[in-house]
């Protein structure tokens, strides 16, 4: 069983969050605002190398970038 989203480099979690976003956006206005607040994410992260912290980056951007990279291969 091959999945189209897997072939395009998405992980299952990313696939789920895209699906969830679509569902949230299709809600009625009053419920949509509350639901979309649950979908917000502004985490930052940093990679560590040998006990030293790297730069803080936005997690959303980094995830999108890595997905795009995986799609290329």
């Amino acid at each position: 069983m091959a999945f189209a989203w897997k072939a395009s480099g998405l992980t299952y979690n990313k696939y789920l969050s895209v699906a969830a976003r679509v569902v949230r956006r299709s809600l009625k206005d009053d419920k949509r605002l509350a639901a979309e607040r649950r979908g917000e994410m502004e985490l930052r992260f940093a990679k560590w190398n040998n006990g030293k912290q790297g730069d803080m980056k936005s997690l959303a951007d980094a995830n999108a970038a890595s997905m795009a990279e995986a799609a290329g291969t």
Partner: protein
Amino acid sequence: MLSRAARPALRAGAAVSARPVAPNAATFATLREIEDRLKSIRNIEKITKTMKIVASTKLTRAQRAMTESRQYGMTSNTVFENAETKPIEGEDKKTLIVVASSDKGLCGGIHSGLSKCVRRMLVANPNCDIVVVGEKCKAQLSRSNGRNVVLNFGGIGKDIPTFTDAQAIADQISLLPGDYASIQIVYNKFINATSYEATPIEAFSEEAIASSPNFSAFEIDDEVLANLREYALSNSLFWALAEGHACEQSARRNAMDNASKNAGDMITKYQILFNRTRQAVITGELVEIITGAAASEE
């Protein structure tokens, strides 16, 4: 000549001893100083009280989120219970420890409790990598085990953690280059309003799931297994984050409660000191006036 020169010094010495002395000479302070200190303690009490109220209101929401997410996480883990999945023992594969703390302090010892638990785990099994969620534990763990840290996340703990947070973290974790035998998520377990315990939950690797004794009870395609693993990881993370958040709010409420109580104690103590000093000053002044009057009468 000598006697005249010594006289002003003598007079100055007499003036010093005549000045009123506070009841306990060790913390000798003038009235103004005590008043200033009282004011600042009152301000601090106001702040801690407000923080306590904020934390209590957040706590009810956080607790609701916690019970829901705990139910959710446990349901997700039922699969592994039924399949009797066990982590793969020993060998040379690394374990990944995910620490679920947060960015904010002022909440007692819950962050250091997590760090201590992680350090104990590292002593028992030094072949571990650490992923730290939250700035507080990062600061503590980078000092002692900086070499083991591979990733850290910040910006968590402003509000109740959402599943989107957990998913994004799980994604980044699954992108890590290392191949991990098991993933332990360390979080604060909410026992009751005053006690929390740093506990690990297990998130299994694909091989561990595939080699679980009762695996044949489920019909799972090999390709889907990776999805299940990722999904279970984010489920467990969500559970850990939400429960950790509730613990933090509850701990902050307690800490601020204690702080306000201590501030109240200090205020009463300083109030008494202030009143005593004031009385001593008045008595001293009265004595001066009376002796002055008596001296001028003669």
